[in-house]
């Protein structure tokens, strides 16, 4: 027998679906060594497609060594922001219809299909009025064929979920639609937020379930038989079953995962994490190893939810932000994302051949539409666009290869690019756009050499000639602008305040002066400086060049951990498995409501009554601790630790929260 034992490794596969790219890393969990990585374009029309490509493309020698796969996904956040969720009917029990209408609350419900029914409980868990089950069932019968899911939220259901549960029982006997109950998602008392959260959750159920199944199939195809986890909005992990039931919890999971990845790789527990991606730059704070969570609940688009999610600030600035001339004839960067010209040229030689001759032309003869190329990203489904429609014409043109906007306008016999009308084609990712980006400028100064350097040089030269500036001067201005934007956003993130808009005619605002003087001292005698007391951890491929000077401005250290360019995907596996359970302990009043006669304990499974507060609290602590621990073990946590948090909600009401956390069990 040989003496050498095979080295046992514990490999985990982390996947992050960002706005631009889907990244995958194969990581040795214990040494934190990245063994392989893979990048593919994010496919918004079907996220599973890009993930499938990453799972297919990443080098895995022995699939049996992979002990866990975990994904962070922007699926939920984007579906909500773009209003692409499934059709949901929201049933509001015991809500005040007049009040809701007076305050226009319906705009916040997350669905336009909703109805009010009698019922609900009081702050003391007593029935406010009898439940109108008849009305509920008739309503469901009427609408069941025009929706995909139902959400039910009853007034003060966290105190007493009886009406939600009775509605659930009855509805599930008359139809097969999935039903989401408010009290199962949040014990917070904000009735509108709970209704919104339930409605959004219902609208995402089918989507997340299909997504998880698609990832599972991709894993199967590569013979990976391991637990699948999904990252929550606070960076912790949940099992796939849990994710399929509570998709709203994945809100902000991408930025949260990045922050966790930065911490995991740098082994620094308190820092500002800045993730520079292709489309956005996201900022989050980690404190004592945990992502800072916004206590009041995450907001997505115009919807306020009660989801515990990372406190993040995201701006539309990244390596692939479009550098172009705005309406005011000044150059701007973003917010649109385009494919860098250097990349497009490396894929299609015709692009450079079209642009290079322009270098012969003089100032004023260059139309900058010539620097924006459109290209066919995927074929539309047959019949998607009518024959002879503008969309069909554009697609037919682009089958010849990428084409600059000037040529498209000419070929379609139009006058102006605004007439093309191809928004639907972009939205569905049938065509893509390429243009000048910071990534191109990174090719210029040698930070990147990945794609066509010459193309970047030509495009930059043309752009600058049009501005009447030499490339070097513009280059400096560009990075200065980027530094300013990121500095401003970090300040806003940390202070919750915004810089007043600049007033060029009457520039007396001291805030803005402080800001500018702190970036570059202009005053002869007065120096102001910013000093961030925690380091900045940079993540994402462009992080070094985007953040080096920003760290200087803040007089702090920039930490670029090993593999910082894929830390987002590392973050998908870096979190702990977490399950939380809450109990509410609240007073029971005497018949005449004059005195407290005992206490109820409402947990996720039952309501029990105690005569003394001590007993009630004791039972609540014991119960949530056990429930959380059991839940975490079921979800795949290794010897979870349980932490209890208690708070008083006023009116003799106590909230007890148990969080059971453990590293993933990797067997």
């Amino acid at each position, binding site marked *: 027998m040989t003496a050498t034992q095979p080295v046992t490794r514990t490999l985990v596969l982390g996947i992050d679906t960002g706005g631009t790219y889907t990244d995958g890393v194969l990581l040795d969990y214990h040494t934190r060594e990245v063994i392989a990585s893979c990048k593919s374009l994010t496919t918004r029309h079907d996220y599973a497609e890009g993930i499938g490509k990453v799972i297919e493309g990443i080098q895995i020698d022995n699939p049996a060594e992979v002990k866990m796969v975990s994904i962070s996904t922007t699926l939920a956040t984007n579906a909500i922001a773009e209003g692409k969720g499934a059709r949901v009917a929201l049933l509001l029990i015991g809500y005040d219809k007049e009040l809701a209408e007076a305050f226009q609350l319906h705009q916040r419900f997350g669905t336009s299909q909703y109805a009010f029914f009698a019922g609900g409980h009081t702050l003391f868990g007593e029935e406010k009025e009898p439940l109108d*089950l008849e009305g509920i069932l008739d309503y469901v019968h009427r609408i069941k064929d025009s929706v995909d899911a139902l959400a039910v939220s009853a007034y003060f259901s966290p105190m007493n979920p009886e009406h939600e549960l009775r509605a659930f029982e009855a509805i599930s006997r008359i139809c097969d639609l999935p039903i989401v109950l408010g009290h199962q998602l949040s014990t917070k008392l904000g009735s509108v937020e709970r209704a919104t959260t339930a409605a959004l959750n219902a609208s995402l159920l089918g989507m997340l379930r299909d997504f998880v199944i698609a990832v599972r199939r991709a894993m199967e195809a590569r013979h990976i038989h391991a637990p699948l986890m999904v990252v929550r909005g606070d960076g912790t992990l949940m099992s796939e079953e849990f994710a399929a039931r509570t998709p709203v919890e994945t809100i902000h999971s991408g930025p949260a995962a990045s922050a966790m990845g930065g911490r995991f790789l740098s082994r620094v527990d308190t820092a500002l994490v800045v993730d520079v991606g292709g489309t956005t730059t996201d900022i989050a704070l980690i404190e004592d190893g945990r992502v800072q969570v916004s206590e009041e609940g995450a907001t997505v688009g115009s919807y306020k939810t009660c989801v515990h999610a990372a406190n993040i600030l995201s701006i539309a600035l990244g390596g692939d932000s479009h550098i172009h001339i705005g309406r005011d004839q000044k150059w701007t960067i973003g917010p649109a994302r385009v494919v860098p010209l250097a990349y497009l040229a490396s894929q299609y030689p015709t692009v450079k051949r079209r642009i290079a001759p322009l270098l012969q032309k003089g100032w004023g003869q260059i139309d900058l539409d010539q620097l924006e190329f459109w290209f066919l990203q995927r074929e539309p489904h047959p019949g998607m666009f009518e024959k002879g429609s503008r969309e069909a014409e554009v697609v037919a043109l682009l089958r010849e290869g990428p084409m600059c906007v000037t040529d498209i306008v000419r070929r379609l016999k139009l006058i102006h690019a605004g007439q093309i009308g191809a928004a639907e084609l972009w939205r569905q990712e049938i065509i893509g756009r390429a243009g000048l980006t910071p990534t191109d400028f990174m090719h210029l100064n040698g930070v990147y050499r990945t794609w066509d350097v010459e193309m970047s040089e030509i495009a930059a030269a043309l752009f600058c000639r049009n501005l009447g500036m030499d490339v070097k001067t513009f280059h400096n201005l560009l990075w200065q602008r980027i530094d300013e934007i990121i500095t401003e956003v970090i300040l806003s993130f940390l202070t919750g305040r915004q810089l007043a808009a600049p007033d060029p005619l009457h520039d007396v605002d001291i805030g803005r002066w402080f800001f500018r003087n702190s970036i570059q001292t202009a005053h002869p005698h007065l120096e102001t400086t910013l000093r961030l007391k925690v380091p900045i951890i940079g993540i994402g491929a462009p992080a070094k060049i985007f953040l080096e000077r920003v760290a200087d401005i803040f007089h702090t250290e920039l930490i670029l951990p090993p593999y910082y360019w894929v830390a987002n995907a590392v973050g998908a596996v870096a979190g702990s498995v977490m399950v939380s359970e809450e109990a509410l302990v609240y007073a029971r009043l005497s018949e005449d409501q004059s005195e407290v006669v005992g206490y109820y304990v409402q947990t996720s499974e039952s309501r029990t009554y105690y005569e003394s507060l001590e007993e009630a609290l004791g039972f609540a602590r014991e119960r949530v601790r056990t429930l959380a621990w059991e839940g975490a073990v079921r979800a795949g946590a290794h010897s979870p630790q349980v932490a209890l948090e208690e708070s008083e909600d006023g009116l003799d009401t106590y909230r007890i929260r148990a969080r059971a956390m453990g590293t993933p069990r990797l067997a």
Partner: protein
Amino acid sequence: MELERIDTQKAYNLIKEKIITLQLKPGAPVDEDALCAEVGLTPTAVREALKWLSHDHLVDITPRHGIRVAEANPAELRELFEMRLPLETLCARMAAERATADDIVVMDALVREYERVKGAGNVDILLDLDHRFHSALADAAHNRYMRETLERFFGLSERLWYLASPQTEWVLNALDRHAELVQAIKARDAERAAGLMHQHVLDFQALVEKALGLTT
């Protein structure tokens, strides 16, 4: 999430539908490969689904004859009705004694929905409502063994509906009885509920036997 279970469930639903609606004829041999192609699922999922269906007595798996759709011959019918008649009668009696207010609201809602859609005469919708009503009644009996046992019979009974090539008015006649049943249950009149259900099942049996030419 176990893919196998998801696929099996899907295959089960699709094949069950085919058997109940007689796209797969009683007694016909089951071609597994053809079935895989038809439902677009893996052989493992289809095989597992067929096992589930054999539990429901909708498929027979025997070593000698391989896999066949269960027969629906006179002997089978007799056996089925011999059990359904006393069980459903008992179920109605228990429901009258034990139904909660919410149980009654559900049954009422199903009856109202029936009144609403009966004019359109869509047999599939009507059969679905019939199935849901009988399930709701079984729930109201508050005995899980009763619920489980009857649920298995419902699949078999539904197939009989299709075998008797349902004419809308038969279905309507049968469903008209439901309203009376709910009245009896509301009145807590166990005798009357049991009697109504007894007659309801006998009527159905007679209908099926006549349609299949079994009555003399």
